[in-house]
């Protein structure tokens, strides 16, 4: 086990097996230990990438095209770090969240939760290091099934129905993706992304149609408007740590695959109109998600709709990669999008965890019931506020930097209309975050009894929120890491200042 790749795959899956088989109350602690271990492995991989450039790994010693190769560049490393960091904190949180031993059902919940949770982590890791079209399909499928099971864990008609919607949408999406993969295999005869990238060039229709299938499938999984309808209830009905991870990471995983294929593999096959269309759907998602978030009465639904909106931002980077001439803005757009992915992962994780804390304490999560939150749960309020800042993209959050870069790209590539969308999105997200924050500031009558909240829950969300803030205070190193193996260069020679 001399390679970080091995640990990244081995640890969570082994943990899943062990926690499933072994009874005992130590399960959640073991999960925590393994998520921390995975973080260490991700750190190891990131430092290898940082020092030596992109890393490859041939599973079973079989090189592509016959075998499956793993690959990690700066992008993978950053997302792996994000994944294990968010999941570590969410695991901390779940120590408190599932500690209700008195209630038998929740203990069952916790028992089912831990192995599924570790499988989810393993499949995310597998996905972020995969360089094989079909392996990506299997990883996505693992992710989906684990996600559905975790949503359904909450029990009750709402969660079951939400899980069902999620499963149906994701199942269809997987098949669309696989259809695309079949066509691509028919065209190129290989599955390895790097080999396809060598062979791919614009021109024939088959790869373009194949890509349309692939992107459609992944778009559904990433909840791109108008394929987002499954998301809000699925993310809102799940247990809090699950909601956090679904919104923070699982949706991003599908987007990550789109990004890889679009930018690294098929850059020449996708056309400018397709990019504009992706951007337009993203913009529609921003507006629609934000409007829905403004209308919802339940806290977790607001946060879930906001995910639809925030995913929209990610798709704005595709039109920004187009444009006339050579310029550093392509890196700005690409890196801005990736940074938004990360920052949003932490912020949304924090928000869902905080929302879960409120639900835990108050017994419901109506926004109107949040009154007096500053007094009852001050730390949760603070994490709420900080995560809200990151969601709106105000400084000093990582999303601010992301927004800065995206705006730079819009202006340098002379596509001002996307700047308008970004601006409108900022104001709308400000509006729905404001709704929540102002509800927290309303003093008013407090509920008679509040269930005491384990401290670990409050601090887990606070640390996540602070991390999203920290990303805004120090972006130099993440960007340096991101540039390792990046498809674009930070500075294009001879252009810019």
């Amino acid at each position, binding site marked *: 086990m001399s390679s970080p790749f091995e640990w990244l795959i081995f640890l969570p899956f082994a943990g899943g097996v062990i926690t499933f088989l072994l009874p005992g109350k130590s399960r959640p602690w073991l999960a925590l230990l393994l998520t921390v271990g995975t973080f260490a492995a991700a750190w190891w991989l990131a430092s290898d990438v940082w020092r030596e450039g992109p890393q490859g790994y041939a599973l079973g010693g079989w090189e592509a095209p*016959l075998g499956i190769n793993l690959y990690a560049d700066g992008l993978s490393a950053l997302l792996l770090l994000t994944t294990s960091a968010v999941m570590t904190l969410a695991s901390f949180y779940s120590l408190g969240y599932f500690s209700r031993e008195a209630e038998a059902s929740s203990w069952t919940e916790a028992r089912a939760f831990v192995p599924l949770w570790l499988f989810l982590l393993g499949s995310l890791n597998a996905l972020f290091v995969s360089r094989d079209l*079909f392996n990506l399909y*299997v990883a996505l*499928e693992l992710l*989906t*099934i684990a996600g*559905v*099971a975790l949503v*359904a864990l909450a029990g*009750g*008609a*709402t969660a*079951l*129905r939400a*899980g*069902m*919607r999620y*499963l*149906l949408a994701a*199942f*269809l999406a*997987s*098949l669309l993706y*696989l*259809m695309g*993969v*079949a*066509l691509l*295999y*028919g065209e190129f*005869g290989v*599955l390895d992304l790097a080999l396809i990238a060598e062979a791919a060039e614009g021109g024939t229709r088959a790869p373009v149609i194949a890509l349309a299938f692939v992107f459609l499938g992944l778009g559904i999984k990433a909840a791109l408007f108008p394929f987002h*309808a499954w998301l*809000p*209830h699925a993310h809102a009905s799940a247990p809090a740590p699950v909601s956090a991870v679904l919104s923070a990471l699982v949706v991003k995983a599908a987007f990550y695959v789109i990004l890889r294929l679009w930018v690294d593999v098929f850059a020449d096959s996708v056309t400018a109109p397709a990019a504009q269309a992706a951007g337009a759907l993203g913009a529609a998602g921003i507006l629609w998600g934000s409007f829905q978030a403004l209308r919802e009465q339940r806290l977790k639904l607001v946060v879930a709709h906001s995910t639809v909106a925030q995913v929209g931002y990610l798709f704005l980077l595709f039109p920004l990669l187009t444009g006339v001439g050579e310029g550093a803005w392509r890196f700005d757009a690409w890196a801005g999008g990736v940074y938004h992915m990360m920052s949003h992962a932490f912020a949304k994780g924090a928000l869902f965890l905080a929302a879960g804390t409120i639900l835990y304490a108050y017994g419901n999560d109506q926004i109107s019931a949040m009154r007096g939150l500053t007094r009852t749960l001050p730390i949760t309020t603070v994490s709420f506020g900080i995560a809200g800042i990151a969601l709106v993209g105000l400084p000093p959050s990582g999303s601010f930097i992301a927004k800065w870069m995206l705006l730079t790209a819009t202006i340098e590539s002379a596509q001002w209309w996307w700047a308008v969308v970004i601006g409108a999105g900022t104001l709308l997200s400000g509006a729905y975050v404001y709704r929540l924050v102002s509800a927290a500031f309303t003093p008013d009558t407090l509920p008679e009894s509040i269930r005491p909240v384990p401290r670990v829950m409050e601090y887990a969300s606070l640390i996540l929120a602070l991390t999203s803030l920290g990303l805004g205070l120090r972006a130099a190193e993440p960007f340096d890491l991101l540039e390792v193996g990046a498809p674009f260069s930070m500075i294009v020679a001879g252009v810019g200042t």
Partner: protein
Amino acid sequence: MSTFELYAALAAVLFAVGLYGFFVRQELVRKVVGLNIIGAAVFLLLIAIAYRNRGDFADPVPHAMVLTGIVVAVSATALALALARRIEDETGTRRLPEDEESS
């Protein structure tokens, strides 16, 4: 029309049929059936592609992919049916409400 083209065309047709069924039928079990038909279409295309490239044997990689795909499909189907069953227990219907808010 070669064998490859015939079955590839069948794949296209099955895909459309399954998709239509998935969209139109409200009953969860039937939606799952629709998805299974779409799955069959995808597998058919893969195997047809493998058939096109055969020496001593047909291309084994798509075959392996389809085997994997079949197992994945049966997994998702079983999970979906278990969910559908539980939904029926909880709500008395095996459909999802038309609009999301009604719950």
